[in-house]
């Protein structure tokens, strides 16, 4: 089918054609109130077809097998011909191989039975509950959650010789535990998203979440003011990926939507800050040997000891900036144009960890979970987040659990003069890696 679409495209007058397909097979379970509420399986094929006539381009996405290929391509030709020219359009990429490749397929996922997957979920729920019960709570309930796992077969073809395919697996699990004790209720969530199934890692995450679940009973506001902020690795990773990942995009830099415009080679953060984009880490969510244009990927330093080394490129942006693509072209949907994006974005560890920061800091707000962090602004680096699970600590002692306070600031100030420590406790999850971060002088809105 895919080759046929290419052939029809040429026959119907397109000067260039690219086909992208993704076949997914996903098994899911949903959890409600300690029980598994439902199970589902989804088998879907998506095809993206992009074409060009000269510098005019367009695309269609087909999440349907119910098509007449000739007419589908005619639709695409109509879109392309009605589009104005993109003066920067360089064409689809040629075959660009890179020496490196990574593992994104885990046979433990492809071979797992429905029953075994259910057992994994049940074991994790039980671990979460039993760890909390060890803290002498009266009741521990996994209130909500889900397990999703499966395979994705991706293939990219174009007329310049690109024909890459890969089969990758993934697993995501999210569970929220509610723990009730005589003094009140508390809760904690765990979330993992990887390409590999490592049951011991999953159970370790469940143990940690179960242990933390009792810490947030009777959480409330703290006084508004300026605090030291200590971000647990997961919270730090979410802020970094929200605010910095879009800023690294060469397209956003070219189009004046990134504060890193004209900053290549310049110091943008403290020397403690080094960030890599690494698609070659085995079995992480962003692990890929080829990007969505079929270009080989490789590991690259984006920020080296505080210096912004290079933006992330697709073939299009690399052409506009007269450089080589970094293999970071990804799509929103199969028929969409590619844009630069991250693979696994990892802030490199330095020294110390969450506990040592808590012990060293005077008075500090420790943040484990946040809501609304994704509304931070990558255009100017402004961070905004509301703390849902936090602790006010002083010299290593917990003063009170915290929720409902808003933390604000600017990521570039936090990672420069505000930076008190980058931990050594790197945690990689959901395609983002970060150790704990300790930041001075953060605005906190509370009472």
């Amino acid at each position, binding site marked *: 089918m895919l080759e046929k679409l290419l052939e029809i495209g040429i026959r119907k007058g397109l000067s260039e054609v690219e086909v992208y397909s993704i076949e997914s097979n996903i098994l899911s379970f*949903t959890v*409600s*109130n300690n*029980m*598994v509420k439902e*199970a*589902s*399986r*989804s*088998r*879907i094929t998506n095809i993206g077809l992009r074409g060009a006539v000269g510098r005019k381009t*367009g*695309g*269609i*996405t087909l*999440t*349907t*097998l*119910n*098509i007449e290929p000739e007419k589908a391509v*005619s*639709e695409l030709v109509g*879109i392309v011909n*009605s*589009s*104005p020219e*993109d003066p*920067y359009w360089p064409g689809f990429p040629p075959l660009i191989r890179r020496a490196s490749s990574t593992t994104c397929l885990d046979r433990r996922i492809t071979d797992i039975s429905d029953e075994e997957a*259910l057992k994994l979920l049940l074991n994790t729920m039980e671990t979460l509950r039993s760890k909390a019960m060890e803290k002498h709570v009266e009741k521990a309930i996994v*209130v*909500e959650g889900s397990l999703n796992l499966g395979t994705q077969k991706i293939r990219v073809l174009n007329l310049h010789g690109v024909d890459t395919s890969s089969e990758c697996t993934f697993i995501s699990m999210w569970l929220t535990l*509610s723990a009730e004790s005589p003094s009140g209720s508390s*809760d904690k969530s765990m979330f993992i998203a990887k390409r590999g199934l490592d049951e011991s890692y999953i159970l370790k995450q469940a143990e940690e979440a179960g242990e933390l679940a009792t810490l*947030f009973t009777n*959480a409330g506001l703290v006084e*508004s003011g300026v605090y030291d902020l200590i971000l647990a690795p997961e919270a730090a990773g979410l802020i970094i990926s929200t605010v910095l990942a879009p800023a690294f995009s060469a397209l956003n830099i070219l*189009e*004046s*939507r990134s*504060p890193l415009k004209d900053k290549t080679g310049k110091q943008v953060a403290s020397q403690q800050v080094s960030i890599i984009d690494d698609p070659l880490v085995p079995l992480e969510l962003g692990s890929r040997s080829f990007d969505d244009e079929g270009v080989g990927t490789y590991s690259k330093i984006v920020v080296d000891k505080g210096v912004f080394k290079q933006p992330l490129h697709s073939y299009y942006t690399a052409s506009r900036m007269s450089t080589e693509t970094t293999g970071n072209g990804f799509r929103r*949907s199969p028929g*969409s*144009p590619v844009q630069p994006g991250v693979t696994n974005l990892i802030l490199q560890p330095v020294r110390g960890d969450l506990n040592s920061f808590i012990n060293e800091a005077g008075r500090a707000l420790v943040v484990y979970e946040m*809501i*609304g962090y994704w*509304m931070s602004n990558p*255009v100017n680096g402004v961070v*905004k987040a*509301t*703390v*849902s*699970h936090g602790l006010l600590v002083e010299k290593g002692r917990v003063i009170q659990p915290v*929720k*409902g306070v*808003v*933390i*604000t600031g600017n990521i570039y100030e936090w990672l420069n003069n505000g930076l008190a420590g980058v931990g050594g406790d790197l945690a990689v999850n959901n395609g983002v890696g970060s150790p704990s971060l300790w930041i001075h002088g953060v*605005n906190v*809105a*509370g009472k």
Partner: protein
Amino acid sequence: MFLLEPMIDLDYIVKTGLELGVDFIDVRYQDYYYESLVVDNGVLREATATYSSGIGVRVLVKGLMGYASTNDLSRRGMREAVESAIKLARVLGHHGMEQGLLERPVYRDRIVSHYGLNPENVDLSEKVELLFDMYKAGRGVQGISSLIIPYGYERDHRIYVSSRGDYIDFTRRMIGVGVRAVASVEGRYEMLWTSESGVAGWEFIKSFNWLNYVAENSKLVVDAVRAEHVKPGRYDIVLDNEIVGLMLHEAFGHASEADIVEAGGSVLGGRIGETVASPLVSIIDDGRVEGGVYVPYDDEGTPKLKTYTVRNGVLSSFLHSLATARGLGASPTGNARVMSFRNTLLVRQTNTYMEPRDWEPEEMIRDMGRGLYIRGKGAMGGEVNPLTGAFTFTSGPSYIVENGEPIKLVKGVMLSGIILETLKNVDAVGKDLVVKTSVFGGCGKSGQMVRVGDGGPHVRVRGFTIGGG
């Protein structure tokens, strides 16, 4: 149109399920089209059409629920989906939650949302020309460094059939245009993302002055670059009617979704009949309100009723699917929704808004004297943790109020509240109800995004926690 004429015999799927021994089966067929055009700094960055079709099957086997979905619409593909759903239901065994669906009358209906001019019949070049004209009008504003103009149109055709005998055939068209502007002044940057959408056809586009719209919003973001941050702390605020619905959606909407309540994940669980807000506050979920997303039936074929979740400050109802209504002993409200045929049913909001009262907005601000006038244009959205009760949302550029007058523009802020506390501090509700929806986004829950609407009149809240941004 290049799709093969759908020869989909949905009754075959129901019949197959019953033959294979299910107690109940329903099928969601979806045929979906989305047109996306994006002009990015004078270049047509995207011209993409998306076609999607497939079926989602749900079965109940001895009280256990299994789902399967596929876009293989051959008889073999459909039969395999039914078999897969049955197998998964059985896999759950004694670990599965035993469920049932509330008995209700059978519904058979066919509805097409109103539209005047079908956007699919409008030439692509006319749409592109509008976006480029908007780009030029916005880019002419001094200080604008980047401008994206997106156009979106969707036709969402869904057919629901069940072994109960339901047959609901519903098509909804939505259309809209947005502005994503970045201003740069003296090395400082600010961004504003706003859009206007409607359940309508091309006439919605023709009836709106988009050039003024882009120019006004471009000026607003340039002014916002120069504006100061608000000092973090607690403020008395007046929320305008573009943002009050966002607060309600986060503060009460999600916590009133009965699947969360049933799971034990909502602070509102077990509180029906309790006072949870000021007596001035009545919150409604309605699938047919003017300006909102049109949801006459939910995705399990139940009519979407106008539902008061809070009436005069008292928690009066949760939002239900047939399963949660049965489980919690309530009446169905028509809130079971899916993002697409691929997804499992969740309880979702439709249009969340506050019932208007009798204050004039200006009177409310004047009476407040000092505080903040929180504006919705440019708000990015919100989020809630319904278990802890913490919720948050952002605003667009807003105003400091002194001596009863909005005197000074400030940058957008982040607001934070606690479900069982914040709305008790509402002390004035306006008369100016506005409800809006969007074809560019919606509400996310458990990985599913559905179109929603929200709104209300101007509302005043005392002592809100504000982060300065």
